[in-house]
């Protein structure tokens, strides 16, 4: 009881800090947020929730959320799942582990999905699969590019084989969108693993990643046990993937909006549209 009061007092008296997972520096939360959740001491890109990420890249008031009322259910009566769902909803204020919608980046419209690792490690269950499938179907119908921010522990075990089937379901929609000639950009963020890596994370026309993001299929410990040797420090990092030819580039968070904007512009089907959006962007920065 006394401890709890002391703890609360401490929170009031001293500003809330977040410890950098890399250099262990204690950084005031507000300062960290202003710096896009990038550690000002060592440059480590800390995890960012989905809403902040949308705010980072979207033109002001341009984001329109879609499919937000989809709710997961514990259809297998899986031990602890209902609790997990409720807790995740409570702590994040979100319905599920992915947010979908449309937005504009420097005036250019795109469909987006953004995964939020705070929600059961953004594991992929029915709702995550359904929302991402729908955003690809919507983007295909409306001739929009898709930008996807991935972060996930993989498939959602609590939904058994149904979660595995989401990998095929989403991939089918990605394929249709792709065959219709539309652009799909993925931005791999920390951590992107398992079934998400083994499906839509690696299916982008252009695959970007944030610095030092963990990206892999199997977990590091499992790989270590299988390989029976120590793995290099950079194993399964964005840098490791770039070196092995599996991603197009690593983009620091501060440059992300500009990079995405340029990529959208470079894929405009008519030259005039591209010039128009460049002009708009320039007038905004001027």
């Amino acid at each position, binding site marked *: 009881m006394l401890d709890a009061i002391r703890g609360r007092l401490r929170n009031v008296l001293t500003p809330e800090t977040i410890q950098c997972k890399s250099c262990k520096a204690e950084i005031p939360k507000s300062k960290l947020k202003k710096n896009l959740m990038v550690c000002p001491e060592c440059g480590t890109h800390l995890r960012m929730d989905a809403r902040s990420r949308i705010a980072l890249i979207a033109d002001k008031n341009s984001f329109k959320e879609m499919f937000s009322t989809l709710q997961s259910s514990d259809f297998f009566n899986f031990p602890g799942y209902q609790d997990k769902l409720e807790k995740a909803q409570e702590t994040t204020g979100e319905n599920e582990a992915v947010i979908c919608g449309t937005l504009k980046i420097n005036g250019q419209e795109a469909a987006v999905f953004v995964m939020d690792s705070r929600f059961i490690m953004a594991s992929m269950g*029915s709702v995550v699969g359904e929302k991402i499938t729908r955003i690809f179907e919507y983007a295909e119908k409306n001739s929009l590019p898709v930008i996807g921010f991935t972060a996930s522990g993989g498939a959602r075990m609590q939904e058994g*084989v149904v979660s595995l089937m989401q990998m095929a379901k989403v*991939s089918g929609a990605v394929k249709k969108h792709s*065959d219709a000639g539309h652009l799909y950009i993925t931005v791999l963020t920390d951590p992107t693993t398992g*079934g998400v890596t083994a*499906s839509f994370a690696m299916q982008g026309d252009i695959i970007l990643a944030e610095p030092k993001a963990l990206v892999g*299929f199997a977990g590091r410990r499992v790989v270590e046990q299988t390989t029976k040797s120590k793995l290099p420090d950079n194993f399964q990092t964005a840098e490791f993937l770039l070196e092995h030819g599996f991603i197009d580039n690593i983009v620091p968070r501060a440059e992300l909006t500009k990079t995405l904007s340029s990529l959208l512009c470079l894929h405009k089907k008519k030259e005039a549209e591209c010039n128009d959006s460049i002009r708009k962007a320039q007038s905004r920065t001027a």
Partner: protein
Amino acid sequence: MTAYEKLKAARHSHRPTGAEYIKNIFKDRIELHGDRRFGDDAAIIGGIGFLNDIPVTYIAIDKGADIESRIKKNFGCPKPEGYRKALRLMKQAEKFSRPVICFVDTQGAFCGADAEERGQGEAIAENILEMMGLKVPVISIVIGEGGSGGALALACANKVYMLEHSVYSVISPEGCASILWKDASKVEQAAEVLKITAEDMKRLNVAEDIIPENFDSFGEMCGNIANLLYRDVKELSALTPDEIREERYERFRCFGVYSENK
């Protein structure tokens, strides 16, 4: 049988492997090797042969029948080059309008450092993406273990069948137990809660049907499988290439349980 007993049966070392089904079902076979990029993964075998009078492409994850071949085949855990070989054969099948028949039997894709280096995730992702777009009939049979993404990479099919005592799961029951109860020995409970049996798959529409096992009369059993495959291939071949693809899309589009407040 409990789910755990079925899991043990699915993993049993005396179970016929992928290679044995291929030998008994297809005639005039030519085996094809390699992914044209890195190597030839012995865990995945494939080639062309006749299903009755129809030329088909066959692909199987093969665990190997004796200890020597099991080591060579990495106990049926494919590496990226295995998945890329399978994809090459599938795209080749599409070019020549051949149906594709897959046999799935793996505890999962290989988890070694070399597999990660060569893009295990990307290899599986690419297979799933391309399989969802194939314009020829694809039929997959889970003959033992259907382990997660490594199995799905050969099972994005128009029709999926489960052998009577085969299992299909998003995670190994051992892995599930160690996450859920921090105790890998609680495999029995994990197998139960994960819903991994052939009956579960049929109930969840993950599989069209269950194929009875009769390993004592294996030739006869394979004859029945051949008849089943022939019937399906004939039925699917009546569709146009675009319809075949769309049918597969709709099959997978239905998966998911959720509610929606409009």
